[in-house]
């Protein structure tokens, strides 16, 4: 390129679309900022309290726990790219996004969360980590699989055919009318029923 090369030296038919240009387009080493997504479930004693939760409350609870366990250093790491990606107040499923560099450190503080303050209520609960994934997609896949597993585990426990039918119907209903997320909701409520009966 340096030795006096000019555009007009190119033969007329040549379209310049070499690698050099395509590389330039992609920019100087644009690398995705990597994160780790933790799929956790919130375990509370009284499930109705779950509905009080919002993502800000969970965020604040995680941040205070990290600040207590890992001090200023942990709090600083926790303020970098940390967010609650998804919170299902019906089922208590939470997606936490952490910086990949620091997720182990931050993860270690999660067991120290014993209660969450939400809307003036103090909800005693604990976080149970189900899955650690690199993308939200893998976490979601896992969640679907996990819920199916739970369902399969619980269906045989139904005492009579009616219950089974009810559960099936409920699932079919919601999947057709309401969408994917509600599936977990119904399923986990049925799970609750099972637990209550047995």
């Amino acid at each position, binding site marked *: 390129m340096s030795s006096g090369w000019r555009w007009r030296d190119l033969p007329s038919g040549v379209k310049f679309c070499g690698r050099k240009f395509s590389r330039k387009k992609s920019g100087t080493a644009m690398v995705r900022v990597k994160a780790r997504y933790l799929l956790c479930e919130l375990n509370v004693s009284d499930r109705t309290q779950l509905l009080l939760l919002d993502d800000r409350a969970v965020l604040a609870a995680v941040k205070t726990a*990290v*600040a*207590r*366990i*890992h*001090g*200023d*250093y*942990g709090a600083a790491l926790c303020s970098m790219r940390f967010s609650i990606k998804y919170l299902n107040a019906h089922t208590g499923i939470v997606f936490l996004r952490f910086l990949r560099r620091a997720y182990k450190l931050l993860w*270690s503080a999660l067991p120290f969360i014993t209660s969450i303050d939400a809307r003036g209520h103090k909800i005693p609960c604990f976080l149970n980590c189900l899955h650690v994934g690199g993308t939200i997609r893998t976490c979601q896949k896992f969640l679907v699989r996990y819920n199916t597993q739970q369902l399969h585990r619980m269906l045989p426990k139904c005492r009579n055919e009616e219950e089974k039918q009810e559960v099936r119907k409920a699932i079919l209903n919601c999947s057709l009318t309401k969408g994917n997320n509600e599936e977990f909701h119904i399923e986990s409520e049925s799970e609750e029923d099972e637990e209550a009966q047995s």
Partner: protein
Amino acid sequence: MRRDEEKGEAAVFQRVVLKNASPYHYMKVCLVLEDESTKLSAVELKQFIITGLKTLYGEVGAALNFDLLKYDEDTFTAVLRVYSKWLVKLWSSLTLNGFYQNQACAFRVLQVSPFLLALSGNSRELQLD
């Protein structure tokens, strides 16, 4: 004669190279206080360092094990021993310790070594005047 033979057996040449095997690191630190007339005992110093660790690294940091091997109350100089793995944490928290009882202070790290022996033979202390 027999003794000589025994010696010959015992005198097998043996050479072992240990790399990064030192379990501990030793630090010689000096606390510089704004008000030099302040008295500070060894226990208070250790407590102060632990408080610093707790603010920077939280409860996990406060649980970090280190020993105050030697402390000179007149010059505020101390020798610390810490597991090699935790050296970076201890050092950084010492650096960020800025206040002792509302007066400005600073830790000067004079020497760091994986060998305690090296702390007693620091040629930078050679005074020829």
